[in-house]
């Protein structure tokens, strides 16, 4: 069994250790922002435990998903706000 998983972040493949959160994968992907605020400011995880909602991304088409609460799966498609 491999101990890594591969997913795509904004179309780019990213390999992370199995069990990593999507927030971790986004952080190492070099994406400029997890999301943009209503007024366009870049946002990234603050609490890391599902409370602040700052880490929201789109996972497999589902927007507003808290990336810190989701474990990476092989083939996952993650989109952040650029």
């Amino acid at each position, binding site marked *: 069994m491999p101990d890594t998983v591969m997913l795509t972040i904004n179309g780019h493949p990213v390999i992370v250790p199995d069990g990593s959160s999507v927030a971790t994968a986004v952080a190492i992907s070099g994406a400029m922002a997890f999301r943009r605020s*209503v007024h366009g400011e870049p946002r990234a995880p603050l609490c890391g435990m599902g409370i602040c909602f700052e880490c929201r991304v789109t996972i497999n088409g*589902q*927007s*507003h998903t808290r990336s810190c609460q989701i474990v990476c799966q092989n083939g996952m498609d993650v989109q952040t706000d650029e």
Partner: protein
Amino acid sequence: MTLPMTSKAFDLAIVGGGIVGAACAWEAARSGLSVVVIERSVIGGGATAAGMGHIVVMDDSEAQFALTRYSQQLWQEIASDLPDDVEYEECGTIWVAADEEEMIEVQRKEVFYQERGVAVEILDAAALRQSEPNLRSGLRGGLLVPGDSVVYPPCAARYFLEQAQSLGAQLRSGVAVVALSNDGVKLSDNSLISAGITVNATGSWSPLLTPGIDVQKRKGHLLITDRYPGFVRHQLVELGYLKSAHSISSDSVAFNVQPRKTGQVLIGSSRQYGVGDPKIEAAMLSRMLSRAAEYMPGITQLSAIRTWTGFRAATPDKLPLVGQCPGYDRLYLATGHEGLGITTSTGTAKLLIDQLLNRSSAIPIAPYLPSRVHQEAIHA
């Protein structure tokens, strides 16, 4: 009549700074009256904040049609002047028909609206699905009313009041009115504001200041989601709504969802009589959301960010009370708008000030006069 020439501080004291009171203040001020609005809390914080902000032409009675149609046209006249935060959007309404029986109702509505000059379009099942891809398959069709629109009611109320203030109207907020009299308005700090005419525009609370008027609290729940642009494109209302919303005795829910300009989805609706507690009731909320999910299964995947309740001011014949209060020379009512107060605020303001200034009105006013209920009571 003309306004009594008195030494009162104001021609007009409007009690209640909801959208109806604010619209009346604007119309009064631009008609040259000196006006004060008294609001115990914040502008547009009562039923105004608990309304969806659906500007809709209704067909359940001729009088309801006349007032909603007139009011909608008044909204269209000011639409281009409304600030961005009022979020006016002419998204149109689709009355959704689930089955053949409701499709017959669609055809009846089509005729009703067309005969009265309202543009409408029948959607078959395929056209409905194309218009709203997130509706479940198997629905029979719908009636599109393209001229209907959506606003964000608290900001609309604030805008109306600002317009009034720019024309000299005054606002007293943060102070409650405890009594109305022929001299004016008595406040909770025991001071008196003298006015030639007093208007009770306090919605579901209006019977507290004017005992005996037949206005009941009708509680509603709303829920709003995060931003999902394009998930819903029109205001969608089930046609079963007509049956359920007209039930006076029992609690009811209906599929009624709205796209906000922000991309948020506003989900209604529920109606309850005899409940005075504004708390969110899980059972009612659950029924309301289940109904929404029956029509839009994908709605269960959206994140809710807030849910709240409010009290509509319901009258027995579903029409508002606009005009002189029976038994009082100088007390007028502008209340009882139930679920249509955002739409009919603009028309109400015209009809009320028309009466005060003895102007002729654009539509017959008799169906909305408070005396109609009074007369029925006498003859009953």
